[in-house]
Structures are given as structure tokens and as C-alpha cells.
């Protein structure tokens, strides 16, 4: 989140309120749980780290107390470094996979039922993401983000199908033996 806020300041110095609005627009429903103060907490931390500076703007009569944040040279370097990073969130499938293996080995639970339960959960999430995507106006930045969420969930659901096929085969073989 810190990197994103820094990058948003690279265009021009901004008010904290503007930054929050732009973030909400880009994130859509994903940004709903951000509380209003969160952006200021982030900015305060960045200021403390010497990556941004805060200037008091010429107070408008109706918004007297607004501050304008701008990048420091160190902040600019940090943005440049962030943009060249090629990191990617890890697909976190290993845990569920191990859960299935362990459950089957110790006969703690039926892997098929675990898969089914997991699928139901993912489908509910997919439904939520899909409805949110449908609610977005065409061409919004948030819609694109939601599309990504939907596609990942779809990929996960297909992996669950693969799990189901594999484990049902294991079931059949053990029954046959």
C-alpha cells in the first residue's frame, strides 16, 4: 500500500483526501473496507521515513487545514525501484493440498468433501466478485481489477476440479483393493 501511495504522488503533489478518492476509484469494491484515516496513517509513516514531505497549502476558506504531500528524492528513487520490481503474489495452494493429503492419509476426513466445501466457498466468493464486476460501469479501472479476481477464482475452481478427479480416482482404487 505504501508503494502505491508513493507512486500516486509521482504525478503531482496531492492532498490526502484526493489520494484516498483515487485509491477508492481504482480499487472499487475492494477498497470499501479502507477506513478514512488509513491513508493519513500511511502518509505519516512515509513522512517519518523521509520519502514524502508535507507542506501546508494556502488555505482555502472552506478547507482551511489541508496539507499537500510531495515526494522527496528518496521517495522518487523508491518509486522507480518499485516499478521495476517483478514480484508476484504466491499462489497459496500448498496448504490446501497438504490438507487433502493429510486428511486422506490419516482418514481424518473425506478429501472429496473437503474439496466440495472449498468449492462452495470459492463459488460464493466468485459470485460476490462477479456481481461486483457486473455492477461496475463499463471501462472502470476497478472492473479490470475485479476481472483479475474473477479469473483467479476461476483458475482455483478448475484446480479444485482437478483435485476432485484425482482424489475420486484414489477412492475408487482403494475401494477396489
Amino acid at each position, binding site marked *: 500500500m505504501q508503494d502505491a501511495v508513493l507512486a500516486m504522488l509521482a504525478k503531482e503533489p496531492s492532498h490526502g483526501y484526493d489520494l484516498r478518492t483515487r485509491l477508492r476509484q481504482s480499487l472499487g469494491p475492494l477498497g470499501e473496507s*479502507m477506513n478514512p484515516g488509513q491513508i493519513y496513517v500511511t502518509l505519516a509513516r512515509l513522512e517519518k521515513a523521509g520519502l514524502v514531505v508535507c507542506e501546508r497549502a494556502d488555505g482555502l476558506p472552506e478547507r482551511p487545514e489541508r496539507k499537500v504531500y510531495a515526494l522527496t528524492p528518496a521517495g522518487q528513487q523508491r518509486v522507480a525501484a518499485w516499478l521495476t520490481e517483478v514480484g508476484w503474489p504466491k499462489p497459496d495452494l500448498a496448504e490446501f493440498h497438504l490438507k487433502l493429503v493429510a486428511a486422506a492419509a490419516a482418514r481424518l476426513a473425506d478429501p472429496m468433501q473437503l474439496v466440495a466445501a472449498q*468449492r462452495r466457498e470459492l463459488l460464493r466468493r466468485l459470485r460476490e466478485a462477479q456481481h461486483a464486476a457486473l455492477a461496475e460501469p463499463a471501462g472502470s479501472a476497478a472492473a479490470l481489477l475485479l476481472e483479475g*479476481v474473477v479469473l483467479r477464482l476461476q483458475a482455483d475452481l478448475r484446480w479444485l476440479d482437478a483435485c476432485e478427479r484425482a482424489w475420486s480416482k484414489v477412492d475408487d482404487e482403494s475401494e477396489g483393493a
Partner: protein
Amino acid sequence: MNVSSAVVRAHGLVKQHGRGQGRVRAVDDVDLEVPEGQMLAVMGPSGCGKSTLLHLLGGLERPSDGEVWLAGQRIDTLGERALARLRRRSVGFVFQAFHLVEELSAAENVELPALLAGRSPREARRRAHSLLERVGLDARARHLPSQLSGGQRQRVAIARALVNDPLVVMADEPTGNLDTAATLDALRIFEDLRAAGQTLVIVTHDERVAATADRLVSMRDGMFVDDTRLAGTGTGWLGGLIGPED
């Protein structure tokens, strides 16, 4: 359960193809009730019998065994003619391959079921135009299917399915031939229909289509293996994706 509230009901439904050794049970002892206003998705891999199930529920095919009820009327015992009349008024079909009549314009395609149902040409035209407007294609009413994109064709097909105010819309892989944008357009229309209280049965292998439904039935080898209620179980999970720092 209250029988009268179920628009579609099936009991012990079986459909066999072939005979003897080569006999395949495409649908194998299925029970189902779809209450009015529900959007039901039937999901499963290709060949699991979901399309056959849809054809049985919509009266396009007859079951080998079991009962099918539509709006309180048992239909598996009806003759071809009675089934046709029933489809005319009560069922709107949407197909993966669209199945539009190629030499008829969009509006003429939408009018066709209305004319078959004995509506006047004027009334049929009025309905066609209002439905094409609803699916956002009023400007293309005079286009031939060959002049429309896949997504537009499917929207014409959906409009056609709705022209006789059917009790239930049955869609067979409606997004199977569509790209992502067109799929979203189609899903938006289904969502509008759902919101308007239209009963829908959608057969699909596309998770995102299935996920928009109120209820999801999973099919394997002609049987139901799961029946999940998706509606009203919102978790607020999306908002949690980007939580407070640390």
C-alpha cells in the same frame, strides 16, 4: 415442499441413449425443483448430461423414465403437438450456437415465436422492438445475424426467448461461444432478468456464469453430486482483500 411454487419439477428423471451394451444413461434418476424466481445453474463437465437434462425439462426431449412438471402440469406424458404449444408459451430457449434463422433480421427472429404463438404481426413487432431495446440492440433490429457479433447474436437469441413472457428461460451454454466482454453483457442481462423475478435454468461449464446463479447444481455422469445455495451468503470477502496495513 410446496409443489405449486415450483415452476419446474422433475422426479426420478432418467434418459437413456442406445440399447444393450452400448446403453448410456445421460440423465440418471434426477430429482429437481426450481421455485419461481430462482436462477438455477447446472454445472458439470461436457458429457455429464446437463444439456440433456435441460432438453428434458423444456420438453424438447422425452424422458425414458420419471416425471417432468412445468407450472404444475405434467409434461412428459404430453404428445408432440401439446409439447410444442407448451414450449411456445411457457419456455424460452437460449442455445450455445444461438440458432438464429440466418435469413431473418434480428427483429424478425425475435418476432418468430410471437407469430408462432398466434400474436398479431403488429403485437409481435412491438414486443420484438421493446425486447431488442432491453438487450441494447434496438439500433440493429434490421441487421441479419451474419452482420452481428457473437455477443449481439446471443442477445438477439435471449430477446427471442423472452418474447412470449415465458414461465422459465432455459439456456444451454449461453456463453459457450462468447468472449469475455460478450459473456459479461449476457450475464448482465441474466442478472436483470433475475432481479425482475424471471425463473432461469442455465446449463454451463463456465464457473463465472454458474456463480451468478442463486443456486448451483453440479452434475457428474448424469447425476447430481452437489446442490449449493449461493444467494444471500455474501461474506464481505472482497472488501477484505485489501485490509488495513499491518
